[in-house]
């Protein structure tokens, strides 16, 4: 029988017996504890505790209005830990009952004070206020996912430093997507659970990779967002490095995919050096970079699709889909030869540039990858445009096109009328946070196009389990004559094949 008995008395401290019993039960269940009780020091209670062998030397000085904390444990240390846990439970203000359902806290402080177990703050308040709210959350030991953008880089750095100091994850600012333990945060999809962890500096990149993996039969452990600027020199990859630590230590994660725009070279060096120390295999997708000097446990992916395939250990995605064969079935519009990309997803837009430029097309973009000219630059003249409709110039004062697809309408109508355009390339992003029926909206805009309108090629980023249902969205597009590829990369390949064939 264990024999360390620890007693503590709180003078004049009252708590109702139901609450005390609950805490007693929790404490008694701690490791190394044989028995524990928290009781008011009434004579009857003292007798009970004495009989249970919980009182040191069989006695106590406690009075009726004093609280006795008593633990019998296997070791002094286990007993002390249990007492400390009991103290903590006592000092926590009581949480409130079911009626609290209708009540909404007005501040992070109040929420943390009155509701048990909160561990993550999802912050999407306007950028001017976001940093202050994140600071409040971090200082109350909440991890933060910050969807808000327009946060200064100085604030981002100081928030991430604060988070690192406290051992907390600071995902974002401008973090569109994360999945923690199956919880979809902001724009995320209902993906299968499994052994692949994702670290994403981009929202739609993470969405495309997690969806392709899930639809191909793989599963996701966690997808940790880090925010688009995490791998810039000013931030130095603070969150990425913490995410690597976490996924390395996470038993559910077998391998990891890292997705980002090409990092600052110094930061890339640090991150890759850290990956080299990991016992787990990594897939590194610096979208827009041609290659990277990787350690032996990492493989480079040029596209999101390739990253997904490597994460699945080479299992091909969209097996049997042949863009060239598909292209032969569709006649290109006479006299037209250009592709126009109209994207709602930023990283899908970047992947399109990688594939089209890789296929020899001369493209320009408002969200250009390295080696692709910006749309506003003189050398962009006459090039094919691959437009990210989610970037600032389109979303000032408007919701993101993934929430409100009508942001794309004008550009779509203009492209349909442009005689030089042979193929319009689009994405349809579904999942939590996204528009309820983006395919339906797209179809409304294009269904009355004439027979000699440009071909429309697209893909649906999402899963069968998503509220909008991937296959239903795809069918909606197909019924309107839109060519639907199984991934954005395949859609880009189809577009290439359509403009280069015959």
């Amino acid at each position, binding site marked *: 029988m264990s024999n360390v008995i620890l007693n503590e008395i709180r003078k004049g401290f009252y708590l109702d017996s139901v609450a005390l019993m609950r805490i007693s039960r929790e404490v008694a269940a701690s490791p190394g504890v044989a028995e524990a009780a928290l009781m008011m020091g009434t004579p009857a209670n003292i007798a009970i505790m004495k009989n249970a062998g919980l009182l040191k030397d069989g006695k106590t000085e406690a009075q009726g209005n004093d609280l006795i904390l008593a633990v019998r444990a296997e070791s002094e240390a286990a007993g002390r830990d249990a007492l400390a846990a009991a103290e903590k439970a006592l000092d926590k*203000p009581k949480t*409130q009952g079911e*009626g609290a359902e209708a*009540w909404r*806290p007005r*501040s992070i402080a109040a929420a943390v004070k*009155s509701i048990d177990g909160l561990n993550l703050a999802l912050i999407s308040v306007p950028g001017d206020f976001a940093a202050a709210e994140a600071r409040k959350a971090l200082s109350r030991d909440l991890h933060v996912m910050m969807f808000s953008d327009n946060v200064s880089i100085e604030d981002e750095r100081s928030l991430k430093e604060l988070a690192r100091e406290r051992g907390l994850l600071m995902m974002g600012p401008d973090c569109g997507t994360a999945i923690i333990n199956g919880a979809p945060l902001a724009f995320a999809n209902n993906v299968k659970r499994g052994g692949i962890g994702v670290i994403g500096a981009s929202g739609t990149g993470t969405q495309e990779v997690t969806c392709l993996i899930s639809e191909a039969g793989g599963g996701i452990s966690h997808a940790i967002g880090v925010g688009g600027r995490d791998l810039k020199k000013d931030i130095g990859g603070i969150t990425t490095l913490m995410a690597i630590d976490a996924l390395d230590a996470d038993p559910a994660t077998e391998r990891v995919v890292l997705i980002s725009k090409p990092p600052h070279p110094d930061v890339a060096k640090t991150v890759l050096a850290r990956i080299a120390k990991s016992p787990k295999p990594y897939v590194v997708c610096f979208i827009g970079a041609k290659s990277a000097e990787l350690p032996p446990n990492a493989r480079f992916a040029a596209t999101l699709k390739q990253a997904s395939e490597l994460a699945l250990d080479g299992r091909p995605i969209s097996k049997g889909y042949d863009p060239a064969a598909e292209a032969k079935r569709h006649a290109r519009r006479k006299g037209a030869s250009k592709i126009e990309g109209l994207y709602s997803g930023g990283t899908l837009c970047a992947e399109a540039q990688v594939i089209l430029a890789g296929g020899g097309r001369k493209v320009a973009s408002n969200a250009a990858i390295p080696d692709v000219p910006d749309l506003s630059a003189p050398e962009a003249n006459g090039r094919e445009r691959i437009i990210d409709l989610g970037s600032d110039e389109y979303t000032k004062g408007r919701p993101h096109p993934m929430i409100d697809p009508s942001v794309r309408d004008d550009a779509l109508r203009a492209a349909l009328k442009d005689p030089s355009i042979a193929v319009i390339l689009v994405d349809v992003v579904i999942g939590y946070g996204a528009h309820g029926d983006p395919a339906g909206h797209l179809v409304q805009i294009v269904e009355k196009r004439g027979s000699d309108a440009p071909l429309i090629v697209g893909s649906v980023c999402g899963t069968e389990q998503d509220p909008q249902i991937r296959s239903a969205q795809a069918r909606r597009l197909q019924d309107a004559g839109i060519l639907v590829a199984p991934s954005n990369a395949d859609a880009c390949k189809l577009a290439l094949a359509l403009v280069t064939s015959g």
Partner: protein
Amino acid sequence: MKLIEDANKEAVKRILEGEPKLIDILPAREVLKGLKEKMILHAGPPITWDRMCGPMRGAVAGAIVFEGWAPDLKAAEKLAADGGVEFHPNHHFGAVGPMTGMTTVSMPLFVVENTKFKNRTYCAINEGLGKVMRFGGNDESVLNRLRWLRDVFGPQLAKAIRALGSIDLKSITARGLSMGDELHQRNLACSSVFLREVAPTLARVVDDKEQLAECLAFIAKNDQFFLNLAMPMGKAMTDPAKGIKGSTVVTAMCRNGTDFGIRVSGTGDQWFTAPVEMPEGLYFPGYSEKDANPDMGDSAIVETIGLGGFAMAAAPAVAGFVGAGAPSAAANFTRSMSEIAVGQNPEWTIAAMDFAGVPTGIDVRLVVETGIVPLINTGIAHKEPGVGQVGAGVVKAPMGCFTQAVRAIAKELGVS
């Protein structure tokens, strides 16, 4: 900021450790140091005659006649207007008073001692409902009742209290909370429990049977009798929390019908004032907003210790009475007040909220940060003196008091 957190913890600790007990009833002149003839103590922060609202002026005139400083009300008003009486807040003399809060030399006052900190506070005896001086009433019936309180009721109840030694106010409050009182707009349970505690002793000490019956009936007929005990109890608990450097905890809230004032621990006796707001609530038949006077009284001291609006969840019936919505929503009042409070009072719990303690220790920082101002349950006075109560409602403490207090504390701590 650690200094502030520690200071606030200390302030709340002192509030919670208080042991307020009713120990006596004595004439004001015997217990209030510095109180003199032709001096009138009123509710709220300092105010001059020219800025007083109607009911306050009516009560002042009545008090002057009651004390014999003028032969009639007209002469009394002239005396007041000509500067013939001095005005001071009750709070400057360790006292509190509901609504107009008149305190003058010959009025009998409850004496409450916080035995933990040995500080004392005072409050006049509640006059009952109807035409009363606290609502500005000043006719002969009002003055006659005050005379009876002075000559009969006060001395007789005092004998009973002395015979009992003291009466513990905190435990009556705890019981009242479990019986549907929030101790501002509803004191029915506490008043009844109080009567139960004093009645046998009162019977022993009062010789004249008729007088005894009158005294018992006076308490029994006045549902708000205990308010005038809850108030000095509140002040007795918050006074020891005054003057803790850096503390942002509110130690007093009160209003004089013109201004709302608060005091904050870290700034000691300084008042932060802003124009008082109109209560929002329900009116007795025949009255409406048009008749209402802006809010007044020192009674908001009870909210300062977590009662009244802060304890609305204990008194769902009051939520309906003051027009604050469905009784089932009463708990949300208390929950939102807990957002601006530093802690809870483990001795004063609310059954309907799984025995959560009433929110205690209003932090001016949290008020400004959240935009949630303290909500005070209040009676609504008619704006004409002497008409009395015309409704009940909830009044918001004006934000201006709290922003001033935050700036003052910041300045005090050298933060800008």
